[in-house]
C-alpha cells in the first residue's frame, strides 16, 4: 500500500470521528440513564413541598417538546443542505435549529423561575433536587448544542462550511438529535407519567 493511502487507511471505511462520537453518545445514555433512574426511584418520596401534580405545566412543556422535535427537522435539513453545497439553505436551517433550541431554553428558564416562585427550589425537597438536576443537565446539553450550532453558522458565513465539512455538521446533528431523544424520554417519564407510590410497599 502506498504511503499516501496508508495515511488515510481505516479498517472499516468509516470516519473515526463518527465512530468516536457514537461511543460518546453511548456513554451519554448511561449518564442520563442514571439521572432518570434516580428521578424515578425518588418519585413520590418527597416529605414536603410541591410535587409533580402540583406544579408541572403540561401545555407549556408539550409546546417545548414540539419545538425541539421541529429543531431536529431543521437540523437534518441543514445537514442535507451542507452536503449539497447549498450555502443559503444551510445557513437558514442551522440558524433555525439554533433559534428553536434557544426558544426551548427560554421556555425552560421561564418554567424554572415560575417553579421557584411557586415554592419549588433546587433544595426544597427530593422532587426539586431530582427534577432540576435532570432537566438542568439536559438544558445544559441544549445550551452547548446551541453554542456548537452557532459556531457552525459563523463558519458557514466565513465560507468554511462546504460539502467537504459535511461530517462536522453530521456530528453536530448526532449530538442535537440525541439531546432531542433524551427530552422525548424526559417528557414522557417526568411530565406525562406522574406516578404515585403504591401504598404498602
Amino acid at each position, binding site marked *: 500500500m502506498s504511503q499516501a493511502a496508508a495515511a488515510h*487507511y481505516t*479498517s472499516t471505511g468509516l470516519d473515526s470521528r463518527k465512530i468516536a462520537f457514537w461511543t460518546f453518545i*453511548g*456513554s451519554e445514555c*448511561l*449518564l442520563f440513564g442514571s439521572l432518570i433512574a*434516580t428521578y424515578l426511584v425518588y418519585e413520590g418520596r418527597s416529605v414536603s413541598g410541591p410535587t409533580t401534580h402540583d406544579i408541572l405545566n403540561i401545555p407549556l412543556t408539550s409546546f417545548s417538546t414540539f419545538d425541539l422535535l421541529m429543531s431536529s427537522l431543521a437540523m437534518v435539513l441543514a445537514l442535507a443542505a451542507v452536503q449539497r453545497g447549498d450555502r443559503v439553505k444551510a445557513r437558514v436551517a442551522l440558524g433555525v435549529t439554533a433559534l428553536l433550541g434557544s426558544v426551548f431554553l427560554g421556555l425552560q428558564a421561564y418554567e424554572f423561575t415560575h417553579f421557584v416562585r411557586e415554592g419549588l427550589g433546587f*433544595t426544597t425537597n*427530593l422532587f426539586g433536587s431530582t427534577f432540576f438536576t435532570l432537566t438542568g443537565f439536559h438544558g445544559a446539553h441544549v445550551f452547548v448544542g446551541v453554542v456548537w450550532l452557532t459556531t457552525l453558522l459563523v463558519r458557514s458565513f466565513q465560507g468554511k462550511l462546504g460539502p467537504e465539512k459535511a461530517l462536522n455538521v453530521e456530528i453536530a446533528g448526532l449530538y442535537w438529535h440525541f439531546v432531542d431523544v433524551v427530552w422525548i424520554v424526559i417528557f414522557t417519564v417526568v411530565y406525562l407519567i406522574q406516578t404515585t407510590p403504591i401504598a404498602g410497599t
Partner: protein
Amino acid sequence: MGTTTIPHTETTAPVAPTGVWSWITTTDHKRIGVLYGVTAFIFFLLGGFEALIIRLQLGSPNNTLVSAEVYNQLFTMHGTTMVFLAIMPLSAAFFNFIIPLQIGARDVAFPRLNAFSYWVFLLAGLFINFSFVAGPLFGANGLSVAPNGGWFGYANLTSVQYSPGPNIDFWVLGLQILGIASLAAGFNFITTIINLRAPGMKLMRMPVFTWMSFVTQFLIITAFPVITIGLVFLLFDRVFGTTFYNVAAGGDVLLWQHLFWLFGHPEVYILILPAMGIVSEVLPTFSHKPLFGYAVVVYSGVLIGVVGWGVWAHHMFATGLGPIADSVFSASTMLIAVPTGVKIFNWIATMWGGRLEFKTAMLFAVGFVSMFIIGGLSGVMHASPPADLQQTDTYFVVAHFHYVLFGGAILGLFAGMYYWWPKVFGRRLREGLGKTHFWLLLIGMNLTFFPMHFSGLLGMPRRIYTYGADLGLNTFNLISTIGAVVTAVALLVFVYNIWASRHDRETEANPWNAATLEWSVSSPPPVYNFAVIPTVQSRLPLWVADGVTPATQPSVPPAPIHVPGGSHWPPLTAVGILIMGVGALLHHAFLPSLITALFGLAVTVVSIYRWAFEPFEV
C-alpha cells in the same frame, strides 16, 4: 499556531524532537505511554508509602504512630491512589505504548485527545494529593484535610453534616476530573482498535492484550458516567444543599451505594482485564507455544465484561436488599467465576507441554495466575450472602481484593514491565535483580495479606486505626506488617534495577522471540512506528513462515511519512479544567469561587476552540 510537524527528507527518516517543551506538547502515543508509566509508578510508590504507614500503625495493638484522623486519611488516599492514580494509569501506559504497535498503526485515532487524557490525569492526581498539605489554606493543621471517607465515600458520612471540612470536596472533585481523562481515553482507544488495524488484522487476529483492553474501554465508557452522576449528587448536596442523600428529606443513602457500585464493580474488571491481557501475551512467549484456546479466552473476556455489569449489589449484601435481590446477585456473582476460571485453565494449558523459559516476566505472569486463583477463591466465598455477612467489612475482604489487585493486577503489570521494557527503552532490565524483585515481592505480598484471611474471620473490622491487645489479632497483624516491609524492599530492588540497567547494552527488535507486531520494529520503535504498514495473515505474525519479521521493516521508510507534531492546546485545556475544580473547591467563599470557576471555564472553552481549529493532520 499550536502545531509543528517533523521534517522528512529522502535520505533520513523522521526523528522525534527533544527537549522539555516537546514532551509537554507531545501527541506521540509512545511518549504519552512513558509519561503515564512514570507518573503512575510514582503515585504507586506514594500509595505504597501510605500502606507502609498503615501497616506500621497496625503492627502492634494500641499503637500511637498516627492518630485516628490521620489514619482515616491514609487508608482513603491509599485506596484512591492505588485504584485511580496507580493501577488504571499503569494500564493506560501499556494501552498507549503497545496497542497501536500491536494492531499495526502509526498512532491512536486522536493523538491530541490522547495527550489531553494524560495531562488531566496528572493534574487531577496532583490536585487530590495537594490536600495533604492544604490544611492551612482552610484554617486547619497540616495532614488534616486529605480525603478521609474511604475510597468508596459512603453517604451520609460524606455529607456536610458529618464531613464539614474540604476533605470530601477534594475527593469528589479529584475523581470527577479523573473521570474526564478516562472517558476521553475510552472513546479514543475504542475508535483506534475498531478503525486503525493494519490490513489483514481481523478482530479475531488481534493480540489478546488488545482484546482485553478493548473490553476494558467499553467498561470505562459505560461505568464512569454512573459514578459521575453519583458524585454530582454528592457535590450538589454538599455545595447547594440538595437532598439526594438526605434521609430526613426522604432520600436514601443506599442510592449512593448503588450508583457507586454500579461503577465500582465494572471498575474492578477495568483494573484486572488489562493485566489478564498482559499475561496472555507473556505466557505464550515464554512457553514457546501459542495461547491455548485464543477464541475462548477472548469470548471469556467479553463475557466477564458483560456479566460484570450484573453483579454490583454483591457489595451490598449487608444492607437489607431482601432475599430476591440477594439471590439474584449471588447467582450472577458465582456465574462470573466461570469465564474467569476458563481463562485460568487456558493459561495453564498454554504452559502445559511448552518449553518454559523462566525470565522475570514469566515469573510474574505465573505469579499472577497463582495469586489470582487465591483471590478468586475468596471472592467466590463472598458470593454467598450468608457467608458474606460474616466476611463483609472485615479483613477477609481486604485479603480478597489485595490478592486479586496486588497478586493479580500488580504482578501482571510488572510482568508487562519486564516484558515490554526493552521495546520501550531499548534495553532489558537485569534478570538477576528481576528475580530478586519477584521473589521478595511474592513473599512480601503473601506475608502481608494471607494472615488477613484469619484476622478477618476472627472479626477484625476494616478501617480501624488500632485494636485491643487481647483479641487474638496481634500475631497476624505483626506478620502482615513484616510482609509490608519485605514488599517495600522488593520495590526498592525494582527501582535499583531500573537505575542499574540504564547503561546496559542495547537490545534488538525481538529479544524474546515473541509473535506479535510490536516486536517487528526496532527497540525502541522509530517515531513513525512502522516504515511499512504490515499486512497480517495470522494471529502470530512473527511466528508464521511467510509472516512479518523485523527484516520487513527497513530502517529508512521507502516513502515520506507524515508524523504529526505537538500541540499545546491539550495541556492548556487540562489546566482550564483544573482551575474550574479549584473554583468549586473554594465554594465556601462565594465570589472567589465563582471568579475562579468562570476563569477556568474561559480557559477551557478558548483552548477547545483553538484545538478544534488548529491545523493538525494525523
